[in-house]
């Protein structure tokens, strides 16, 4: 048929559809006339009129069928009957608003929560990076790095110069720098020092000006800076003439050569300014200190496998050439978009798992409710079947109902997802989010919303149809017979399985949630080795013009400390190069212990080096366990050695059976001067972040070692805000131009540091509560239905004189038995998830017996109430009325 004919046919079909009532009347007339004429013919042939009529009908064929086929031909039969089904289903659902509301809300919450979390997963883990040919972007790392992603400058230079699989292999280093201005508006900038091919590797052009030239990697030529879009608008009013201007970073002038586009935020965690990475000769030979992160672009045609093989081989050659540092150091190549996976992945996976379980519970709920509803409609279904409705017809009705519920639930789900994504985004502090690649692109993920919805619809559909099929399976007359039991045992057992599964899932989520909340509280409750209460901090850096050498830096900070200590209200003051629990850690260095043999490769003692003043330990509440902290003797250099204070962990690790006091160490920072460090004291461990165990710490004295960036910490009985402003005033009197950054309570700094886990814990808490609520709703719904189904049986029992108490016990016992099985399975499954979880989050333990016990009691109580309430209603009914009701 030509397309034109198809159009003509469709148009006239639509026309017929519009005139379908008139058409039906006319068709009726035509058929009537035809039958009359035929009958008249038979009469003429000698048949009696009644027989003639019968013969006419026979010759015409099934009148009803012809009529229907004509009606179908004249319109859109599917559409019409679906519309009828929709109307009917909607009426049915509205007649039962409680059921419908519960299903819609359940679905909405499950679908929405799942979509919200997945939107995060998608943006952070799955989306390609926003760079041209981003699949060729990789990072080269050590296979077992002491800190995530970091490599040594020496290795980086060798990899860069001696590999042939990369178009470019660039490197970068994180740092901070102080932007000072005459107006006194000082700001700490997240600064990244990058190799000159960094921007070329990513293939991102600047918005204004240019990026770095190879020449600008040389000392002396490196006084240039590229601004981030945020800083440019914030501090320079988006001035188009900013290129060529000079700004002072840490008091050193740099020429602005370019401004990046707003969407460019690489690497994660640095987006204010980019400066050239200058590698001096000593950098190039440094294979000990991990400080550089790499990002490279594979040569066209080079595969990831090739790159891995080449780099592994190169790593092996370097290990041979530099056995002291590189032996056992594996090299691996990871796709850039997967680099963060190891860090953020487990947390997102955990959230996603919880969300998926909530969705599963929602599905189980919908199925359960659908089953219960179908059970109570079994008679309606059988009547329909008896009246000749085909299976397809009944199935369609159930399907339409499920779809309507799913659509309404989906509407709620979209709302929940949109709201949830917003809440999740806002709950993550900027301090945290700036480290998350792809964070700014997080938005509601429509495909997953559709997928979650489809899952929920499908489960409702499957169980609805299963229930409906139970209605048409038994011989129709059988089911119609007065008083026949309306629930089949197959359906009852299906319902038991669902209730059990729901309880099990709820236990798993709730136990994990409890564990997360407990873990977070343990992080927060001062069990991290210091006390943040009443402590204020600020970051200080002496202007370069003010201090000439390291002696000057030491004196400057001595002055700062003296001023701060003299402030009324300050009980103690101290300096430290890195705040506790701040996510960052000081440089990790290799130590040599005097009198010990050369350590085997890979077993070199490592420690994070901090510079601190004597008062820091008392101010931050870090307990002294043995020996002493720093004092004037150290500064005077009386015994010739530098003094170090070590953490308990370090002491236990390297002097398990000895007293470490008085032992001598080579610490690279000071060993360059050929001097030893002597252990003078042992202090308690401080947990620096939430994703690792204690790290070994080594404190050098701020009176002996210069560090340009120091946190001043002050403790006092007054409010922290007062403490901070008084101290800042005192410092201003010392030097009005002194830049002071990040003045805030230590507790705020700590909060920012536990941001990730706080969100995960909160999320898990919400999901746990949701899971418990949803499964309680589900269990209650099912139990209520089940009891409703047994009303007749219970009525008979009551009529025969059974005590109400005994009847309740039967019903409740039945429900509890099912729940107990679910509980048991749930607890078993939870032992697995808690173990997974314990590995993920420090401070939580796999031994979650208390949480599990609490959850078990809670779930059991829920089930008990859910069974008991309907049972009580049932025994209060008048047995006579119940028996008559059928």
């Amino acid at each position, binding site marked *: *048929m030509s397309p034109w*004919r198809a159009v*003509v*046919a469709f148009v*006239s*079909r639509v026309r*017929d559809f519009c005139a379908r009532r008139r058409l039906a009347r*006319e*068709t009726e*007339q*035509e*058929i009537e*006339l*035809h039958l*009359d*004429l*035929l009958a*008249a013919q038979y009469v003429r042939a000698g048949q009696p009129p009644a027989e003639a009529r019968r013969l006419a009908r026979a*010759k*015409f*064929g*099934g*009148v009803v*069928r*012809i009529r229907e*086929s*004509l009606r179908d*031909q*004249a319109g859109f039969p599917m559409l019409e009957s679906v519309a009828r089904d929709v109307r009917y289903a909607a009426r049915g659902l509205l007649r039962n608003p409680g059921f419908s509301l519960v299903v819609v809300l359940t679905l909405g919450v499950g679908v929405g929560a799942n979509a919200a979390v997945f939107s995060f997963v998608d943006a952070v883990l799955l989306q390609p990076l926003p760079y041209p040919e981003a699949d060729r972007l990789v990072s080269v790392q050590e296979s077992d790095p002491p800190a995530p992603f970091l490599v040594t400058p020496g290795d980086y230079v060798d990899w860069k110069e001696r590999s042939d699989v990369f178009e470019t292999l660039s490197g970068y280093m994180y740092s901070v720098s102080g932007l000072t201005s005459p107006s006194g508006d000082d700001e700490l900038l997240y600064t990244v020092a990058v190799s000159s091919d960094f921007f070329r590797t990513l293939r991102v052009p600047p918005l204004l000006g240019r990026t770095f030239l190879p020449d600008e990697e040389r000392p002396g030529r490196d006084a240039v800076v590229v601004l981030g879009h945020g800083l440019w608008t914030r501090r320079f009013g988006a001035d188009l003439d900013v290129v060529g201007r000079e700004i002072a970073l840490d008091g050193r002038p740099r020429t602005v050569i370019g401004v990046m586009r707003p969407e460019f935020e690489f690497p994660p965690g640095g987006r204010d300014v980019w400066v050239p990475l200058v590698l001096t000769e000593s950098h190039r030979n440094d294979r000990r200190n991990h400080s550089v992160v790499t990002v490279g672009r594979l040569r066209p045609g080079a595969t990831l496998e090739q790159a891995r093989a080449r780099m592994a081989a190169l790593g092996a050659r370097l290990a041979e050439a530099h056995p002291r540092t590189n032996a056992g150091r594996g090299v691996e190549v990871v796709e850039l978009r997967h680099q963060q996976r190891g860090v953020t992945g487990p947390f997102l996976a955990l959230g996603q798992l919880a969300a998926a379980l909530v969705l599963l519970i929602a599905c189980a709920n919908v199925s359960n409710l659908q089953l219960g509803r179908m059970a109570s409609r079994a008679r309606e279904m059988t009547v329909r079947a008896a009246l000749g409705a085909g299976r397809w017809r009944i199935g369609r009705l159930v399907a339409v109902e499920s779809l309507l519920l799913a659509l309404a639930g989906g509407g709620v789900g979209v709302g929940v997802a949109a709201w949830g994504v917003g809440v999740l985004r806002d709950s993550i502090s900027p301090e945290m989010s700036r480290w998350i690649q792809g964070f700014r692109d997080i938005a509601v993920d429509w495909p997953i919303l559709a997928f979650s919805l489809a899952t929920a619809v499908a489960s409702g559909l499957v169980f609805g149809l299963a229930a409906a099929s139970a209605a048409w399976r038994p011989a129709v007359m059988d089911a119609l017979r007065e008083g026949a039991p309306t629930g089949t045992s197959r359906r009852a057992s299906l319902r038991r399985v669902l209730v059990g599964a729901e309880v099990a899932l709820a236990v798993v989520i709730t136990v994990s949630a409890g564990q997360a909340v407990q873990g977070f509280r343990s992080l927060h409750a001062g069990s991290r080795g210091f006390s943040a209460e009443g402590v204020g901090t600020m970051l200080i850096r002496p202007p370069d013009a003010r201090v000439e050498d390291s002696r000057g830096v030491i004196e400057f900070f001595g002055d700062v400390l003296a001023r701060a200590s003299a402030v009324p209200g300050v009980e103690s003051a101290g300096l430290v190069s890195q705040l506790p629990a701040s996510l960052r850690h000081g440089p990790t260095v290799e130590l040599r212990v005097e009198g010990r043999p050369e350590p085997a490769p890979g077993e070199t003692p490592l420690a994070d080096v901090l510079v601190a003043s004597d008062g820091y330990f008392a101010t931050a509440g870090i307990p002294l366990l043995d020996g002493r902290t720093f004092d004037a003797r150290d500064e005077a250099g009386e015994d010739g050695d530098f003094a170090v204070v070590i953490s308990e962990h370090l002491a236990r690790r390297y002097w398990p059976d000895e007293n470490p006091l008085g032992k001598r160490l080579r610490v690279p920072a000071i060993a360059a001067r050929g001097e030893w460090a002597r252990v003078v004291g042992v202090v308690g461990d401080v947990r620096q972040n939430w994703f690792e165990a204690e790290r070994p710490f080594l404190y050098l004295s701020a009176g002996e070692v210069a560090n340009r960036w120091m946190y001043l910490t002050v403790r006092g009985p007054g409010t922290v805000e007062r403490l901070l402003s008084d101290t800042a005033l005192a410092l201003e009197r010392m030097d009005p131009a002194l830049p002071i950054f990040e003045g805030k309570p230590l507790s705020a700094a700590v909060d920012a540091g536990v941001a990730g886990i706080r969100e995960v814990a909160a999320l898990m808490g919400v999901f746990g509560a949701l899971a418990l609520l949803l499964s309680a709703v589900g269990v209650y719904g099912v139990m209520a239905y089940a009891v409703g189904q047994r009303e007749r049986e219970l009525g008979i029992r009551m009529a025969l004189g059974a005590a109400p108490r005994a009847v309740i016990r039967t019903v409740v016992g039945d429900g509890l038995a099912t729940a107990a099985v679910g509980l048991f399975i749930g607890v078993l499954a939870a032992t697995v998830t808690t173990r997974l979880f314990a590995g993920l989050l420090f401070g939580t333990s796999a031994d979650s017996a208390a949480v599990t016990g609490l959850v078990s009691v809670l779930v059991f109580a829920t089930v008990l109430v859910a069974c008991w309430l309907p049972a009580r209603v049932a025994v209060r009914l008048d047995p006579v009325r119940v028996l008559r009701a059928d």
Partner: protein
Amino acid sequence: MTIGEGRTDVLQGTLDLMVLKTLDVMGPRHGYGIARRIEQVSDELLHLNEGTVYASLLRLRQQGWIEASWGRSENNRRARFYAITAAGRRRLAAQAEDWERIAGVMARLLQLSPDP
């Protein structure tokens, strides 16, 4: 279109063709008249469920090959008369040609004897 086994079957496409041809030869007719004519021509060889004629008429009308108008039947009742359109004639010619070609091929095929 499938080939039925019994002689009582009227294939859908062939019924449409029969109706078109009847209207072409006999001029405007109502459904009953068309059914009588087909019965007469088929010499009782064809068993027709006469109701299906109306399905065919509706189909042909929706394609624009025939048109309907109201008139009076022989017993003076309101009846719908169908007439072939110009498009219907073209369709009939094409269909008839197709049908003859297929019929010819079938006839030759069925006359084939095994190779000597």
